[in-house]
């Protein structure tokens, strides 16, 4: 990430579980993490948009990144959480994740950027791979994940 400078060479990520894989979400985008709740379906929107929820009086859209990334559909368990993200371009939006595990602090050297020549679709949603004690985490490029897919 460009904004990392010499003074602050570390970035904090929240490690989330999606299926068998672990992903990292930059903590600066995270507004809140809430338990799974009733999602009101909105008709005539792309499949990955699950609907809207009420977060303290505000109506917030919620998307399934599993559907967006062509993973099997979400199975709602007691560990399922909605991460509320605050993004500059798209405003506030929630994403459904299987589980929120921990917060890790990665130094710049621990992040390996990935190139975009991979043929796989979902590689586009990742800007790097983080290496830490617990193993590898794919670092999500949130703007790419949230961006509407061109038809």
């Amino acid at each position, binding site marked *: 990430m460009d904004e990392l400078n010499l003074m602050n060479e570390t970035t904090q990520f929240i490690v989330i579980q999606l299926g068998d894989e672990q992903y990292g979400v930059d903590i600066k985008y995270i507004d809140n993490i809430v338990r799974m709740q009733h999602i009101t379906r909105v*008709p005539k929107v792309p499949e990955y948009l699950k609907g809207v929820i009420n977060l303290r009086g505000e*109506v917030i859209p919620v998307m399934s990144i599993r559907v967006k990334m062509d993973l099997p559909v979400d199975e709602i368990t007691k560990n399922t959480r909605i991460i509320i993200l605050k993004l500059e371009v798209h405003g506030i939006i929630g994403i459904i994740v299987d589980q929120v595990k921990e917060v890790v602090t990665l130094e710049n050297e621990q992040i390996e950027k990935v190139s975009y020549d991979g043929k796989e679709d979902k590689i586009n949603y990742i800007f790097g791979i983080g290496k830490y004690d617990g193993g590898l985490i794919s670092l999500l490029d949130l703007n790419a994940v949230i961006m509407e897919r061109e038809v």
Partner: protein
Amino acid sequence: MDVSQYLEIFLDETKEHLQSLNTQILNLEQEPEDIDTINEIFRAAHSLKGMAGTMGYKRMQALTHEMESAFSEVRSGKIKINSDMIDLLFQSLDALEEYLDNIQRNADEGDNENKHLIKKLQDIVVNGLAEESAPKTTATAAKKKATPSSEGTEKWMEIPLGETEQRVLAIAQKQGKNIYGLTVSVQESCLLKAARAFLVFKAVEDLGEIIMSQPPTQDIEDEKFDLFFNLIVISEYPLDKVIAAAEGVSEIENVRGGILEIDDSGIENIDDVEMELMNSDSMMPMEQNTGKSGQSNTSQGEKKSSKPVVNRTVRVDIEKLDVLMNLVSELIIAKNSLVSASSSEETSARSGVNEQIEYLESVTTNLHESVMKVRMVPIESVVNKFPRMIRDLSKKLNKKMDLFMSGEETELDRTVVDEIGDPLMHLLRNAADHGLEETAARIRSGKPEAGSIFLDAFQDGNNVVIEVRDDGAGVDAEAVKQKAIERGVITAEQGDNMTEKDIIDLLFHAGFSTAEVVSDVSGRGVGLDVVKSKIEALSGEVEVKSKKGEGSTWTIRLPLTLAIIQALMVTVGGEKYAISLGSIQTIEDIKPGDIKYVQASEVINLRGIVIPIIRMSQILDTTSKKADDEDMVVVIVKKGDKMAGLIVDELMGQQEIVIKSLGKYISKCKFISGATILGDGEVALILDANALI
């Protein structure tokens, strides 16, 4: 001085003044002799000049200065108003508006000096005065005589005298004292101008009394003057001595002066003057401080009857109001939770809760109303500019026309009022250009020579209706149809099957204009569809009715408020939806057997009216929970003249709901206008009945 913090106020006030000028000059055109109008124009021009000067907009100031000068002559009766002058004044106003636009965009007035306008205004003054044969000064009270002087530095002659000063001077004159005007020039190299000025004051005060100075004393002390300042002095000593005393101060370039004669005829009754003074002070706070060449305002009789120049307005930051609005929203949500809590409890405990709910309900309703009222502004601010526009159009199109307006006091949400100006302007232009026939054609068809355009606004239930009506030729449906076919908007067969009303509605289609010749007034083919989309963006609707030969009526219907509505809650396929009560006509129970088919679509025959029905479960991609043979609940909704029946599963009841945006991320869904939060915290979507029909 940093004036940027005043920029917003400056813009607002300048707009008000310009509007007032526009209105007053229009009045003046009708009644060129009306002294009240002339006075108000003078005052507005004067205030404008002062404000522009304070903000450092020199070009704007220069132009207003010339307008003010011209009007000062008009006011004193030396120049008569004629139509050329009115045109020139309007041009000047346009130029001022241009400055204002520039300032609004980039805080800079631009570099158009409008020299030709300034020149013309000066010509008017010069010519007007040259034509002046007999002296007929009716209102000027102060005549000033200058001692002969070769140079034009007699600035003291231009000091505007307030009434206090005049009174004092008149009394002094009666007592046989001398009144002098002095212009003191400071040397360019002078470093401490304020200090030198102070010494001059002191020297002069030894010999007499300084009645007033220009700039005001405070400004002189703060060194807010260029190289000269003016004084008016009462003294028993001869003029030469006073000048010599002032010139005795070092670093003073020179002092020029003369005797001032006060015409005291206008100041007979001192008590009266004092009364007037209080009025005039509150009305024109800038008059005495900022005027440089403006003549003293002495027309006394008129003041009592004249209105204040602008409306007194309270400016409230919209953001603050929005916060208040959100608070109210939460209050309503809280109320709704109480409602849902009470319905689940035992009957015994319920009565107390019910009382609370009733109380809460009255509080929230009142709060809602009062907050709404704060947001409401009369549409006056928007429609005020139209008489001027129609006048200009009348000249440009060479058609005679009059604009009649009513209901300017009708109030609408501020956000709506700000947006409604452009669509209304389009409709009026349209009426003037296409609606009204050429004068010759009007005379042929036996109509009055001058066409009439009406702009009526009124409240109708939860809506505000604005009608633009003309008595012109009406819409030629056949011509519209031909044009539409020609433009490829419809096919010839479609055209044959369309009703006259449908054809007229084609006018709102993008890229459509019936004017044979594209003029710069209207007819670019972008007007009406923009009008329609703009009004729909405001949750309003626009319709047109036309009768050939008798004129057309354009009706705009806007909701009073955009934030909280009364809604009917329904369920479809187990999901809850809200439908605005405003668009609901009736609710009917229909047997499945009553559904008929017309052109392969389902309709019902309701008391003689055939209404198409829409199965909401299909539209919303869900499955109805009801069996096919059960009776159906049909909500009949209305949009203008059109109706439709929405089949829903169940009715839940009426509720006051707070409209929340779905956010820009989910904006694709056409017939969902927003969402609301129910008492149990669940989100329900709001169906936009208008989009469904």
